[in-house]
């Protein structure tokens, strides 16, 4: 069982009290306990079981405008005494920063709604094993599949965030995650792909057979890939890749990148950065949402934000420190976005495939090729050649490149949005990118 609210709160208040006694003018603390139980299967047999019980605490102390922080997994009071003393000592020796402070009192979350983020159900290891047996049986049905690795994890967490301005709150969350990675082989090639499902509630999790079948089919269709020539071509990003474009957008509008001047979206608020059919939402209060939260990591209330309205950038993602620097109020995005998504487009997936006589459908990218300072983008890619709306053959060992400033203006979205991750996008078409191949 995860530690209860009372235990976490007692530790948190102990730290705040001690920090104050030792001379802190302000302090904030987060105490978190997380218990995960995982079972892994490989080729239809038990491969690994893993239980982790993590308890940790981090405290930030302020002396006027000086600040420092410590974190530890050892919560014995003896150890906390030594660490907090050390933290205060370090704070005294750290130069002042005029923007350091806790959030303004009126911004703290006041009511904590039940967002349905905790499922009490406990799934025993033998039930996980039953699920994985069904999953792996489905995944290895086709004899082209030569290796399967699957995993089932249950996670239960609880936390308390407290600070010297009187904020003290936290809640339990749960997640159930199943995944399957399969390897397929033919005379010419060996390929790997995967499928995955993660939910707050056990009963919402995808069916085992369905997950196994999807993983296997997605892998088999990649066999015997070809390499194509270098050209300018329309790219269609599968949903699992399209969400990455949205994540890059989120990093580029984080108030830290903006205040440091290291983002290609600096000074773009109220300007058109996407094509005019594009709107982006960040909605923290979705029931059972994978990114849902009642407040951010500083305790500031989080409201739904329409970040992009018909192509126009409306907000940055603002925390207290960078907000003060930019002369803007925190909008509760310390720690990033919650449930971030593109609003659906107005054409079907099928019409999107048909919108060019030839395009590339990308199912996987590799490499860290997004530069948020310049907007330059260049990654390795795997996918399929699409001709006249049909999947022709698999493609690999190519790169795709462009610049986000241009890419954002050339996005068309399908109407197939679903909430599978915390960040989600419909299938995405981008015209005019460059493919490098042969």
């Amino acid at each position, binding site marked *: 069982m995860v530690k209860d609210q009372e235990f976490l709160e007692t530790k948190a208040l102990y730290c705040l009290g001690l920090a104050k006694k030792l001379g802190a003018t302000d302090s904030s603390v987060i105490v978190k306990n997380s218990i995960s139980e995982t079972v892994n299967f490989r080729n239809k047999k038990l491969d690994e*079981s893993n239980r982790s019980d993590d308890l940790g605490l981090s405290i930030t102390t302020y002396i006027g405008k000086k600040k420092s922080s410590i974190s530890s997994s050892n919560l014995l009071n003896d150890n906390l005494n030594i660490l907090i003393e050390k933290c205060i000592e370090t704070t005294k*020796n750290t130069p002042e920063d005029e923007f350091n402070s806790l959030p303004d009192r009126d911004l703290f979350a006041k009511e904590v709604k039940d967002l349905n983020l905790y499922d009490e159900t406990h799934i025993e290891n033998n039930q996980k094993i039953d699920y994985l047996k069904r999953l792996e049986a489905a995944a290895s049905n086709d004899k082209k599949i030569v290796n399967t690795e699957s995993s089932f994890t249950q996670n239960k967490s609880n936390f308390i965030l407290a600070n010297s301005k009187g904020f003290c709150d936290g809640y339990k969350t749960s997640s159930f995650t199943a995944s399957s990675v399969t*390897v397929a082989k033919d005379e010419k090639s060996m390929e790997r792909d995967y499928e995955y499902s993660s939910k707050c509630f056990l009963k919402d999790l995808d069916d085992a057979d369905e997950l196994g079948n999807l993983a296997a089919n997605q892998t088999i269709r990649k066999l015997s890939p070809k390499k194509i020539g270098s050209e300018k071509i329309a790219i269609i990003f599968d949903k699992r890749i399209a969400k990455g474009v949205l994540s890059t957008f989120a990093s580029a509008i984080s108030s830290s990148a903006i205040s440091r001047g290291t983002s290609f979206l600096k000074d773009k608020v109220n300007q058109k950065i996407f094509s005019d059919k594009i709107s982006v939402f960040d909605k923290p209060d979705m029931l059972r949402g994978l990114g849902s939260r009642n407040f951010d990591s500083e305790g500031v209330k989080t409201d739904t934000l329409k970040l992009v309205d018909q192509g126009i950038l409306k907000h940055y993602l603002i925390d207290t420190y960078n907000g003060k620097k930019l002369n803007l109020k925190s909008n509760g995005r310390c720690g990033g976005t919650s449930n971030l998504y593109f609003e659906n487009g107005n054409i079907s997936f099928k019409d999107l495939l048909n919108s060019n006589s030839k395009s590339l459908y990308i199912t996987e990218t*590799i490499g860290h*090729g997004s530069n948020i300072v310049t907007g330059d983008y260049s990654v390795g890619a795997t996918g399929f050649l699409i001709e006249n709306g049909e999947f022709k053959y698999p493609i690999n060992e190519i*790169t795709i490149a462009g610049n986000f400033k241009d890419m954002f203006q050339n996005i068309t979205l399908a109407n197939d949005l679903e909430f599978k991750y915390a960040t989600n996008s419909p299938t995405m078409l981008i015209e005019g990118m460059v493919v490098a191949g042969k």
Partner: protein
Amino acid sequence: MSNFFEKSDVSRKEAESIISDTLQKCDDGELYLENSKSESILLDDNKIKNSSYNSDLGFGFRAISDEVVAYSHSNEVSKNSLKQSSENLKSTLKSVKGTYNHEIPKSNNKYYDNINPIEQKSLNEKIKILNDVNDYLRSKGDKVKQVTANFLGEQKSVEIIRSGGETLSDVRPLVRFNVSVMVEKDGRKETGVYGVGGRQSYDSYLKDENWKSVCDEALRIASVNLESKPAPAGEMKVVLGPGWPAILIHEAVGHGLEGDFNRKKTSAFHNLMGQKVASEGVTIIDDGTIDNRRGSLTIDDEGTPTEKTVLIENGILKNFMQDRLNARLMKTRSTGSGRRENYRHIVLPRMRNTMMLSGKQTQEEMIKAVDKGIFAVSFGGGQVDITSGKFVFNCTEAYEIVNGKIGSPIKGATLIGDGPSILKEVSMVGNDMMMDPGIGTCGKAGQGVPVGVAQPSILINKMTVGGTKL
């Protein structure tokens, strides 16, 4: 050294008896204890943005029967918690009938000193250097718009207790100093990053104002990129500079030669042992025994002393990198490559310092041999798909080569290639092998571990460059 049982309600003797009892009839397993202290001090945007300290203590208890691994970890070193973990392991491995393997080779070699780098330099001294870095770089002209610099220091004490009470321990220092600078000219912004580090005190890397040379290098890269033009797209010849570009070796062949992927036959290399996988003259080793290097270890995280493992010798595939589990199942021995990020994670076979050894040619000869291609000097990160063998890495400093001469700098681009065939495309190996500056972290299965790389300049006949210029 840490005494893990000093403040605990469980004595060493009691712990040993829980371990021996749990691992009875298992094929392998151990209790791994870890106590780490780390610090991070960051200067950014003209200010000390962050000074933080972390102290982490915990254990990971592992039992292995045949192919099945049971693992349980906790950050409470107590009788209750050890017993709970023991129960978890026993419930996973219901009917064990193995023979515990007691064999762990011994060595008296040590590759770094038992120091705590965090305590060896005062906070004020560190803050002073960071402020000096900021002033120094900003004095280099108006084009410098942003400076970030940080110290990362760590001391990690580990202890491995095996069935029967055999105990192995190690204390591992690790430091890193990084500088990142952003420059702007005519509305165009570019960044340059450089860093140094290893398993010694900060002063070993920064004495005599050596931090200035780290700043100069970061600024040089950023300034070169200000003048860069769009990179070409398509297949061409590529000359790689010495040192850090060896992350090509790490991604292209290193991961594919890790024991787990080969036991499971999911690596593109699994059926190539003894075969020619690289051009003649290409020799690649993975070495955990170089003094004070970031990827070096006195013992690995299973207690096995590290070694210098020959992976590819003169083009022929010779060895995989092994931990104890994969070695046993593949009927070979551990190469001291069993590593984990920390006690929260299971052991996997990992790289240490992966190096391609020097050949005879000069970099000049290589450039001369290229009509149209690129010369890549510095890289960001890389990634590989083990199964298809395709790998990428991102250039952060590169130039075009036209008719045997180095031309204009080109924008950052991703290069993509095929692991099992790329080393056969190496047509020249330079005489200028160099280690990287000590900044690499390798990610696998969600676990990051410090690693090193090294190589001489090399000429690759054909690679796909992911630029935008057709």
